[in-house]
């Protein structure tokens, strides 16, 4: 550890800091924690306290404007017994899952292209790919309404060509509309982690593989894909998890059959006015997300072992 000893000798030379630096030098992990303090402090205020409130509230029940603070599992029992909650949960996971897979598959070649085939102005490409996301999410959802809508781009286009007589109505206010919009809206969240992991790949490894006689496909399967897997996993998580809790897109584009669990959680805090139930639904959603994430991680680990 040349660097460590070097810097600590320097630090010890400066007056007044010798004792602390010495301590920090001896306990390297203490220095690590010290470095982490600001981040941990912010996360503590933002996570632990709200999480505590959430868990507590999920065990309360509503009573008029107030809460009955007796701890009970009644809300959890309801989410288990009433079919609507299970149906909404599985629908949410289905919609988000499809949107996630579609986004990652569609964005991978793009990230690959920028990482390996763009040699000048890489940053320009990255900015170009994230630029649309500087516009309001609400407006992009609205733009999709214009495209998928009754007199929208697709319908008027198809009618002009003469392929259809009357506008296709299933394009809007359907689960498909939600999936398409989510995939488009979250593309940036796939491209960035994919690009970062692909860019990191040591090009000499690819060279070595070629020297060993690997073709493009074998090279991709043996080196590029396994090494970019962390990016793929990150992209999946970054898209799947927030989208399961989304409520704006289904609210604006989903129609009556496109409602997701996020809509119902939001309703509990709004018109339905049952905060404890909302907290419970959120807890249930979190548990399911964790479970799915664990299974997903397990599968990717198996896959990675197989590829490697």
């Amino acid at each position: 550890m040349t660097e460590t000893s070097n810097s600590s000798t320097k630090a010890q030379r400066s007056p007044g800091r010798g004792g602390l630096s010495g301590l920090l030098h001896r306990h390297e992990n203490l220095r690590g924690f010290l470095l982490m303090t600001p981040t941990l402090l912010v996360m503590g205020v933002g996570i632990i306290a709200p999480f505590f409130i959430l868990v507590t509230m999920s065990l309360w029940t509503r009573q008029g404007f107030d809460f009955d603070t007796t701890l009970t599992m009644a809300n959890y029992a309801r989410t288990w017994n009433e079919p609507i909650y299970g149906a909404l949960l599985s629908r949410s996971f289905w919609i988000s899952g499809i949107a996630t897979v579609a986004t990652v598959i569609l964005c991978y070649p793009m990230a690959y292209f920028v990482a390996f085939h763009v040699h000048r102005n890489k940053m320009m490409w990255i900015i170009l790919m994230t630029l649309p996301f500087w516009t309001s999410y609400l407006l992009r959802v609205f733009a999709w309404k214009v495209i998928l809508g009754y007199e929208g781009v697709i319908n008027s286009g198809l009618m002009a060509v003469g392929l259809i007589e009357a506008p296709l109505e299933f394009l809007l206010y359907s689960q498909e509309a939600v999936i398409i919009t989510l995939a488009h809206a979250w593309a940036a969240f796939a491209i960035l982690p994919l690009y970062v992991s692909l860019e990191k790949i040591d090009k000499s490894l690819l060279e070595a593989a070629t020297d060993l006689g690997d073709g493009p496909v074998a090279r991709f399967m043996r080196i590029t894909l396994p090494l970019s897997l962390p990016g793929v996993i990150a992209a999946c998580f970054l898209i799947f998890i927030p989208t399961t809790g989304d409520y704006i897109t289904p609210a604006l584009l989903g129609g009556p059959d496109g409602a997701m669990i996020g809509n119902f959680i939001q309703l509990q805090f709004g018109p339905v006015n049952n905060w404890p139930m909302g907290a419970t639904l959120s807890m249930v959603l979190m548990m399911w997300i964790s479970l799915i994430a664990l299974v997903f991680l397990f599968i990717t680990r198996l896959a990675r072992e197989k590829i490697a």
Partner: protein
Amino acid sequence: MDIVDQLGAVREGKMSRRAFARSLLASGVAIATLPAGARRAMAAPEDQGTYFTWGGYDIPELFGPYMANNNGEMPNFAVFGGSEEALTKMRGGFVVDVSHPCNQAMPRWVATGLFQPIDPSRLGNWPDVIPALVDLEGNDAEGGSIWMAPFDWGQTSITYRTDLVDLEGKEESWDILWDPKYSGKLGSLGSGADAWWVGAIKAGVDFKDIDTPEAFEKIAAVMREQRPLMRTYTDDNTTLEQALSSGEMVASMTWASSAVQLQAEGVPVKFAKPKEGALTWVCGLMIHKDAPKVDKAYEIIDSLLSVETGHFMINDYGYGHSNIKAFDAFDAAKLDSLGLSKTPSEVLSAGHFQVPQTQEWETKMNETFEQIKAGF
């Protein structure tokens, strides 16, 4: 790779970092010069009152008198999309000066203890306020004070395309929104605060009995019947008006303003006068109990109650106003076409006027209605 190669790479990296610093500077300049208008707006003094209201009520046209008293400054605004949303936020600790509920929600708002009574003697326009609009259930605080100063009123009815809906010589009726002929081409406001009450009208339930279990069953059955016919439920007027203007929907439950807006755009629509009666409402202004600027709160309310604000509300939004003098500028025919009248009680009682309910009922109703909307 040896160390020299690596340091070479670092040097390259350093170059791009320097370049980055420059580009950051450049974009910083660009961003700083971007909202030239924002700078001006940022000068808004801290000492204006805050008005928590629906979108569209945050425009200068409604605050002429206020701005005249405050060097041309408007109040500060916070905007909500629905009144339950607003109540949720205030119950969570959000403090404003003035907010904007409707008569049906007012007693529940009062019951939260989050509001203070309004002293009418502090409002210059009060003598011109139509008494029938003040005299609402639950609107009497102690000592001649009131909880809510009425501001706007109107109807919830059906806006339909005259070219696409064939009444076949029959009277206009809520049945349009239950007609299987128009399946997939009907729309509705998404909040139970409107839709459930319309369901009651359709089911023939008297609003006095709307809290009975039988009424609940009946209305739920009617709403379930309607659900498969619906293109969408939404709280946003833009969606409904767009769909009506394109013919995607032929009829929808809307407020009067949607019909006025569509007609102004030349879309052939009519705001129906259903034979069963429309749904009628009064919205008004309440002062938060911890309002930091009570004086400004009264100024905001007085400005909203003024004649010039009333002109704008009637002419541009098609809503009724609470100042009787605001109606003088309009002839009877114009008012009638908007479904308004100088004597609001005529319009309000000709329709079905919403009746305040308990929080329990409200919660149960919303929960049921949301489940029905989701298909359960």
